[in-house]
């Protein structure tokens, strides 16, 4: 296993970062780039354990790189539980790990994990007497908990703003941006909220770029084009870095609550387009929570977006998106293996280049003390390993789970599909079960970026139609839907 290093990000990278800066990590001085995610900077410095889990004190590290999971929580400038994959690296910040005794890196409470090898049922522990229970609770709170309370002064209350919007689009990914474009084309006033500081969603991640023949830059170039169109639109306001926290059903439509570091707003929205995308997932296998295991999108973002390679060799597992990522890593000179059931010309090409390609196997367990160093593979359903691979970094492919939550707030119907999870139910025009809420993209089950774009355009058109009759628009929308056959 080689040490962490930085790799070339390639031309046209849409993730901006500033000059090299220094900051403090538990008393050490370490380097990072201004504006890159703190988690990426620490991984580039060889930090492997970011914290400890709540019950078994198992090591934790970043895994989604998109603000979805809880693996990268750190204490930053005296504030606990900061998601370091979302927190920008700045000069002079002081970063510490939380939880773990004597330290998160070497934590004696890990013994709980070893003593209770299968599982620890805490429901009836220390319940014999109230006094013992009180004592046990004090101890457990101390060793679990969510770090220590903030030592920094709390900031002043955020500015709270309330305004009305004709349409709120939640999510500026492929679907959300095209919904906003379609709405702007019908002269509707649109506010677009995006949780990530960088709009683009899946268009930012190489593995999910449009077409599969370009390389990460192709998706990035396409994104730049859409962004330019959006900037030229009258009536579209884009608010990146501002996650929507809740959707409430109000008397006059819906209220959308969104917030960023400086400002919180409540928007009275006549219509909502939910285009929230999907959450990265990791398949279930033994030790699936070991640091060094990432979702496909998470590893894509870390390696190609931020140019940080924590360890080699990289094993990429999954279907077409995994093959995309493996090809790009090999092109960049990263030692890569591929675990897939697919057969195509690109995989044959990889094999010619001495890349290890394994077929017909599943991951049974990951091995490693504080970071992954090997994986055991075996046939589907088997628990007996047939093959052991060295692995310094694992991207385990599983379909992302649609982000149905905000549509669920608004009372929209959702339904379950085994291959990905709960998704928002919408018809071919993006109409949900709530007449004021439309849905598009991956949260509504669009399987790829191209269909996410089409569904976004349709949802935008249908949303505009619901705000006022327009026979010409209705005809255009009918034609688009009829094209499906």
């Amino acid at each position: 296993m080689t040490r962490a290093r930085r790799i070339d990000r390639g031309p046209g990278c849409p993730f901006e970062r500033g000059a090299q800066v220094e900051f403090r990590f538990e008393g050490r001085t370490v380097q990072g780039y201004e504006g890159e995610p703190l988690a990426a900077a620490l991984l580039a410095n060889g930090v492997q354990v970011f914290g400890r889990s709540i019950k078994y004190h198992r090591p934790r590290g970043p895994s989604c790189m998109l603000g979805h999971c809880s693996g990268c929580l750190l204490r930053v400038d005296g504030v606990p539980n900061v998601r370091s994959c979302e927190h920008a690296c700045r000069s002079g910040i002081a970063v510490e790990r939380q939880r773990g005794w004597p330290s998160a890196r070497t934590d004696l409470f890990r013994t709980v994990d070893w003593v209770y090898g299968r599982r620890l049922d805490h429901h009836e522990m220390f319940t014999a007497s109230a006094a013992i229970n009180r004592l046990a609770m004090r101890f457990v709170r101390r060793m679990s908990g969510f770090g220590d309370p903030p030592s920094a002064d709390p900031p002043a209350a955020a500015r709270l703003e309330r305004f009305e919007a004709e349409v709120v689009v939640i999510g500026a990914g492929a679907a959300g941006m095209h919904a906003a474009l379609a709405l702007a084309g019908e002269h509707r006033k649109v506010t677009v909220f995006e949780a990530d500081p960088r709009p683009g969603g899946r268009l930012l991640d190489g593995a999910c770029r449009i077409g599969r023949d370009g390389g990460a830059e192709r998706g990035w170039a396409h994104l730049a084009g859409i962004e330019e169109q959006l900037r030229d639109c009258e009536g579209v306001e884009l608010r990146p870095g501002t996650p929507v926290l809740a959707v409430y059903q109000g008397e006059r439509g819906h209220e959308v609550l969104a917030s960023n570091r400086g400002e919180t707003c409540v928007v009275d929205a006549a219509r909502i387009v939910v285009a929230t995308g999907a959450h990265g997932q990791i398949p279930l296998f033994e030790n699936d929570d070991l640091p060094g295991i990432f979702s496909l999108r998470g590893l894509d973002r870390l390696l190609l977006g931020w140019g940080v390679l924590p360890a080699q060799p990289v094993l990429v597992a999954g279907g077409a998106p995994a093959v995309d990522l493996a090809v790009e890593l090999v092109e960049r000179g990263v030692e890569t293996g591929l675990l897939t059931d697919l057969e195509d010309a690109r995989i044959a090409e990889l094999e010619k280049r001495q890349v290890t390609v394994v077929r017909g196997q599943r991951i049974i367990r990951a091995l490693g003390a504080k970071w992954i160093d090997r994986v055991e593979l075996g046939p589907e359903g088997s628990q007996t390993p047939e093959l052991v691979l060295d692995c310094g970094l694992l991207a385990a492919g599983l379909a992302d789970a649609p982000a149905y939550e905000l549509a669920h707030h608004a009372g929209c119907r959702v339904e379950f599909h085994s291959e990905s999870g709960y998704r928002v139910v919408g018809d071919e025009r993006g109409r949900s079960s709530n007449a004021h809420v439309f849905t598009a993209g991956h949260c509504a089950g669009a399987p790829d970026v191209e269909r996410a774009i089409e569904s976004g355009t349709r949802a935008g058109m249908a949303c505009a139609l619901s705000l006022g009759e327009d026979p010409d628009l209705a005809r255009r929308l009918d034609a688009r839907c009829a094209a499906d056959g």
Partner: protein
Amino acid sequence: MAKTIVCRCEDVCIEDLKLGFEQGLRELEELKRHTGLATGFCQGKCCIAHAARFLARLKGGDDMVADPPRTRPLLHPTPVYRLAGELEAEPEGDGEP
């Protein structure tokens, strides 16, 4: 035997779900209340789909899995100071909050 962790935030492993099912828990809501699944920092973004798949397999199909547990605001952990400000302007005709 090493653990297979389903919910990383609350350290819920697959054995917890299996035991819950053996004890008669058949709905996601019940598994959630029993194990603490989906109640941690990420609020289920990484585990709800896994748990629902687990139930679908044991109950014999996707349509046997009910709606997910109620999704409660707020979607992301949010410091209180962000919600502590006063609204600058209330739109006209607004009743009780």
